[in-house]
């Protein structure tokens, strides 16, 4: 053999190059690993586990870049899943390492011959790349249109199938997404994205498997080969061997497989449970946030309501002030005083306060005077009930007038006339205390002395 490092001829059985000390043993080991990975990749490709096959074959060429079979198969797998550019890249590299007797040359030639198809595949890849951008910009509808077009041109484009399914799931079109996922799984049954989406849509179903024509043909061919004539003794031996093999198979394959299935189911349920818990926490948090938002909103509405009520009261007070003004102008002093008295000074807006004060000064004094005169007249007529009302109104509206002492004195006299001595004493005392030095106070003092 030729030493790969110094390129001299060396004996096959050596473990090290005598000239450059290159580790031939390790070199052979790497070649063997690459070959084993290729075989694994081939088996996976036959079983349509194309994603797994890509993993194995990529490793195979990492160990030995000149493993032409692995590289050609890697290109073929890329081609099968619609990754046309990647397939072509692998084949071109392959032809770089082996320029003759290389099937990759044939693949490239075939593609070059079908120029229109090449263009279509390339367009489908461009559309897919564009769709990724659209989806990233939250334009899932545009992404779906692009991907559907891409799949028309390149029906085996697994990544496009998965992306269109994802976009449809985002749009909540679960039933429409399913055929794309199934299609992806038919082409590549080990595609992790498709498996994930399928489990999301059909949590309790098994992943669908496609029986390939090629694999079916291989199996049929193997069955045909095994049909050989047996002698009676051969039948007995065959039966015994068959029974032993079946038992062994049961022990080796079926039971562990069943255990694996159950373990997988438990794992799936665990994942499902975790997802449910996460979803529950999320919903709980969302609900709490919604409640907080609603409470805040309610507070704002109540505040606004309070402000509006305040404004409404203020407006009513302003209307009353205007009515008082009108009544006063129309000489309806007593009515004006009643209305003015009913006003709540605290609710009057600042801009109307001056008007209110001005009206209070005029209306209450005039009303107190009018009521005092009415009370005095009623007292003269001995209409004591009316006189009490009028005099009390006079004192209610104004107490610092020149007749206020007499209003109290007259009230005392009325109650004395009515034999309500206690009440009479009360009014005389008020006149004496509140208006000292006045006529009303002097008269009250004299009357009070007589009552004692």
């Amino acid at each position, binding site marked *: 053999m030729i030493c*790969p*490092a110094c390129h001299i001829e060396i004996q096959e059985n050596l473990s090290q*190059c005598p000239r*450059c*000390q*290159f*580790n031939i043993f*390790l*070199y052979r080991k*790497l*070649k063997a690993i690459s070959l084993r990975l290729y075989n694994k990749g081939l088996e996976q490709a036959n079983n349509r586990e194309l994603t797994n096959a890509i993993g194995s074959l990529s490793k195979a*060429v*990492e*160990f*030995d*870049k*000149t493993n032409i079979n692995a590289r050609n198969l890697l290109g073929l797998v890329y081609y099968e899943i619609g*990754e*046309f*550019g*990647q397939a*072509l*890249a692998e084949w*071109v*590299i392959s032809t*770089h390492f082996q320029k003759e007797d290389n099937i990759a040359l044939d693949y490239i030639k075939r593609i070059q011959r079908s120029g229109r198809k*090449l263009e279509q*595949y*390339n367009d489908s*890849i*461009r559309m*897919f*790349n564009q769709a*990724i951008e659209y*989806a*990233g910009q939250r334009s899932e509808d545009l992404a779906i249109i692009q991907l559907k077009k891409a799949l028309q041109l390149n029906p085996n484009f697994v*990544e496009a199938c*998965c*992306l269109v399914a*994802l976009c449809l*799931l*985002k749009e909540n079109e679960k039933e429409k997404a399913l055929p794309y996922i199934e299609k992806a799984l038919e082409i590549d049954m080990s595609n992790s*994205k498709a498996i*994930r*989406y399928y489990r*999301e849509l059909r949590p309790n179903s098994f992943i669908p498997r496609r029986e390939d024509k090629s694999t079916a043909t291989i199996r049929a061919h193997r069955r045909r080969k095994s049909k050989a004539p047996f002698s009676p003794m051969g039948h007995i031996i065959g039966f015994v061997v068959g029974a032993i093999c079946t038992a062994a198979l049961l022990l080796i394959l079926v039971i562990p497989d069943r255990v694996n299935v159950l373990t997988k189911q438990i794992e799936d349920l665990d994942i499902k449970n975790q*997802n449910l818990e*996460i*979803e529950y926490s999320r919903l709980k948090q969302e609900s709490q946030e919604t409640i907080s938002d609603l409470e805040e909103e309610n507070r704002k509405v109540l505040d606004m309501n309070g402000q509006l009520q305040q404004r409404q009261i203020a407006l009513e007070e302003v209307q009353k002030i205007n009515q008082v003004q009108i009544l006063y102008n129309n000489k309806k002093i007593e009515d004006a005083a009643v209305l003015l008295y009913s006003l709540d000074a605290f609710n009057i807006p600042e801009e109307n306060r001056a008007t209110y004060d001005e009206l209070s000064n005029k209306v209450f004094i005039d009303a107190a005077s009018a009521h005092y005169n009415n009370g005095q007249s009623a007292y003269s007529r001995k209409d004591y009930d009316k006189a009490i009302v009028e005099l009390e109104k006079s004192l209610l509206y104004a107490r610092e007038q020149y007749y206020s002492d007499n209003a109290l004195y007259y009230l005392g006299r009325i109650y004395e006339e009515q034999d309500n001595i206690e009440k009479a004493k009360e009014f005389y005392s008020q006149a004496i205390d509140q208006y000292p030095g006045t006529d009303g106070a002097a008269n009250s003092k004299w009357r009070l002395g007589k009552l004692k």
Partner: protein
Amino acid sequence: MIDFKEELRKFKPALEVDGIEEVIKSNEIKDMIDLLTHITRNLEIKSEGKE
């Protein structure tokens, strides 16, 4: 539950035909055997230096 954004990150742009040449040129293809050869040559140079 599928997180759209998270899933979308797993999708990478596919290689277009126009980009093949660039990819082949930019990545000098190395394998484990190259690495082994490189180590051997380094050892060779060191031993020559000692002599």
